[in-house]
């Protein structure tokens, strides 16, 4: 029998495989992301805005919207096939399921960002001469972490209620406001190369990620009850 983290890893692998095999979902999400890039870049070039300055904000708003699709997969597939009980029995702990699904959502979000960001760079015409690459990736990672954690939990909730899929973004966005601020300001710091002055927001992101990884873990027994 694998231990706790071993089980998390196994469920994570299963979900990732499922994600890659049910290719059309992933592709649908990616195409939606690309579409968001196209629409926002097109809209912004019409009004000739300062792209380096608006880039972080536009990037994160797009990621949030694309995430409403990307994060609605975690528990939906099990719910549709009615295999959630089996998975619960096999893993024996709801925390394992949450962590595994969360890691899978995070992976999907990161894949999405890897596709979307270079396109943004090209379409928006971001120049960012002082870009701090490492800090930029850190801000992406920490921002996606919180997004994936909240999204996974809310997806576990909304799949259980008939007709609640539409509520997913309504429930998710207000919870993500501190994360949005932190992520945008960190990315902004990375793009403009002012890492020192934005370090404080990294702690905001870390605090948010911590709180919203622990809280769902504690509450998940109630989410997946019965």
């Amino acid at each position, binding site marked *: 029998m694998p231990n706790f983290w071993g089980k998390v890893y196994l469920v994570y692998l299963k979900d990732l495989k499922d994600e890659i095999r049910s290719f059309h979902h992933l592709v649908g999400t990616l195409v939606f992301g690309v579409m968001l890039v196209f629409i926002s870049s097109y809209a912004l070039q019409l009004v000739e805005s300062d792209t380096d300055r608006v880039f972080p904000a536009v990037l994160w708003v797009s990621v949030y919207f694309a995430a409403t699709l990307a994060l609605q997969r975690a528990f939906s597939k099990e719910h549709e096939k009615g295999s959630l009980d089996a998975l619960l029995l096999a893993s024996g702990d709801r925390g394992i399921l949450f962590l595994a699904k969360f890691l899978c959502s995070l992976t999907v979000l990161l894949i999405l960002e890897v596709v979307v960001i270079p396109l943004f760079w090209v379409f928006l015409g971001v120049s960012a001469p002082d870009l701090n690459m490492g800090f930029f990736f850190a801000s992406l990672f920490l921002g996606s972490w919180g997004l994936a954690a*909240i999204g996974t*939990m809310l997806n576990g*909730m909304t799949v*259980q*209620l008939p*007709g*609640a899929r539409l*509520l997913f973004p*309504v*429930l998710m*966005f*207000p*919870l993500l*406001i*501190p994360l949005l*601020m*932190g992520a945008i300001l960190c990315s902004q710091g990375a793009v403009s190369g002012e890492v020192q002055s934005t370090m*404080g927001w990294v702690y*905001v992101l870390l*605090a*948010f990620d911590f*709180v*919203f990884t622990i*809280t*769902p873990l504690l*509450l998940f027994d*109630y*989410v997946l*009850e*019965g």
Partner: protein
Amino acid sequence: MRNGKYILFWMLTVLVPINIYIVFYYAPVERTMGIVQKVFYFHVAAAWIGLLAFCVVFGASIAYLRRRQDRMNHLALASAEIGTVFISGTLLTGPLWAYPIWNTWWTWDPRLTTTLVLWFMYVAYLALQSGGATEARKRLSAVYGIIAFINVPLVFFSARWWRSIHPIVVSSDGIGLDGKMRLALFSSVAVFSLLYIYLVPLRMKSIALREQVRELKAELFR
């Protein structure tokens, strides 16, 4: 307890006009802001109820997850509904004051941002609760009530870090108000609190009745 409702009702019938008198005639007109400052007494009292109601949602949600009494779910729902009304009042009265004083209807000050996010979470909570009081819905609403409450300080402190121009009247250093104005503020907060205490059980009762009607209908048309 049956009598409590009537006592509260008559108390409010007397106290609400008295409060309005205190706010408009007893408390002096503010020297620089003028008459528009009067909105402050309602604005702060409504914001207080909005926060209090949210704390009640949080407490009742925890109690529901622990004990599974429908009463706790009704309390959380009733409190959220009334809280939404009061928070909407805060959000509407704020700009009335802000436009003449700050020269803008809205600004992204931490208090304003937090109040708006609070309003959105209230609305999301109500949307989650609406549509058939099933066991799953009650349980998941309780979970949402808890996470949403945890989110409030995170929103406030991150927004405060960003910037703040909102006047801080009540702080740890005391209350920066003239004596008569202070009385008007206290009286408003007290009357609004009484109103909240009066409304919550009424609303709980009607929620319970609504559920009963739904169950009876389901039985009837089975």
